[in-house]
């Protein structure tokens, strides 16, 4: 088992774990925010436009955490900084 095999295996495993955990937690938070937004719209239908706009902005801010983990996973898979040490 040479070094290249170890690096490839660890990289693939780490990318999977990264996107799994990094996608799970922000989606929990976004689900809670969506629940509150729907409850608020049901309680005050005349404020629906403002509530939905605020929800979208907040959801996008939360979403960026998941995007960070996607970027890290893509770097590990396609632009691995350590793999050139062992490929001639």
């Amino acid at each position, binding site marked *: 088992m040479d070094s290249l095999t170890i690096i490839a295996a660890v990289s693939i495993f780490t990318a999977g774990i990264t996107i799994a955990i990094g996608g799970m937690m922000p989606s929990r938070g976004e689900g809670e925010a969506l629940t509150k937004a729907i409850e608020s719209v049901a309680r005050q239908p005349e404020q629906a436009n*403002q509530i939905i*706009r605020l929800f*979208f*902005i907040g959801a*996008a801010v939360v979403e*960026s955490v998941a*995007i960070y983990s*996607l970027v890290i996973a893509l770097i590990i898979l*396609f632009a691995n900084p350590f793999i050139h040490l062992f490929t001639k």
Partner: protein
Amino acid sequence: MGVEKVFTKELMDFGYIQIWGIKLHLVLTDVVVTTWVAMAVVSVISFFLTRNLSVKSPSLRQILAETVIVAMAKQIRDFSQTPVFPFFSLIATMWIFVAFSNLIGMVPPFHTPTGNIAAVAGLSTITFFSIYYYGVRFHGIGYFKKFFEPVFILFPLNVIGEFGRILSLTFRLFGNMLGWDLIIAILVLLTGLLVPVPMMLFNIVGDIIQAYLFGVLTLAYIVAGLRVEEIDKKLSGIKEDWYEI
């Protein structure tokens, strides 16, 4: 790997150039060509939508253009609570251009230009400098006092936060676009040609939402540092009734 066709291609290589001891690698990628095509499309459509405008008998073209413009102005008005005149050209242009750049990836010979981090970093640079342009324009040089709030010691944290907001704006658009493209490429690789069509329909919705968020967050970063009451007093001479229907 078929997935790597999603990433940026190099069309021409102009070699290296030396400026002030900095080594620049001049290379023409397909992102440049695609953004120029998007700019040309937007310009031509805008040119033909604004011919023969009239107040008495508006044509169908004019009604379409006015609907879009008035909807954007109302969004900016609702969000900033100031007259829209100073911000309207920047934010509306950003919305239109980013939406066209996101959607042009559906046309077969092109790749999505916003799936490249350099293009999105250029757009975020516009946001970064426009924050200070509006701050100095409305509040003078005293705008930079906001870095020393609430206490003097927090100045480095404020600077880091300022850069972090721009970085998150960059990575949000770039990661979303590249993620959608990768999903479609992997589905084509695994199944067949017509399977990703529903995904591409979702892709349209996602592209429009990301373009809207890029403009709205630019506006939010600009307005967050301003004191809205003073600006309202300063701009009270401007009467804006063209978007209130």
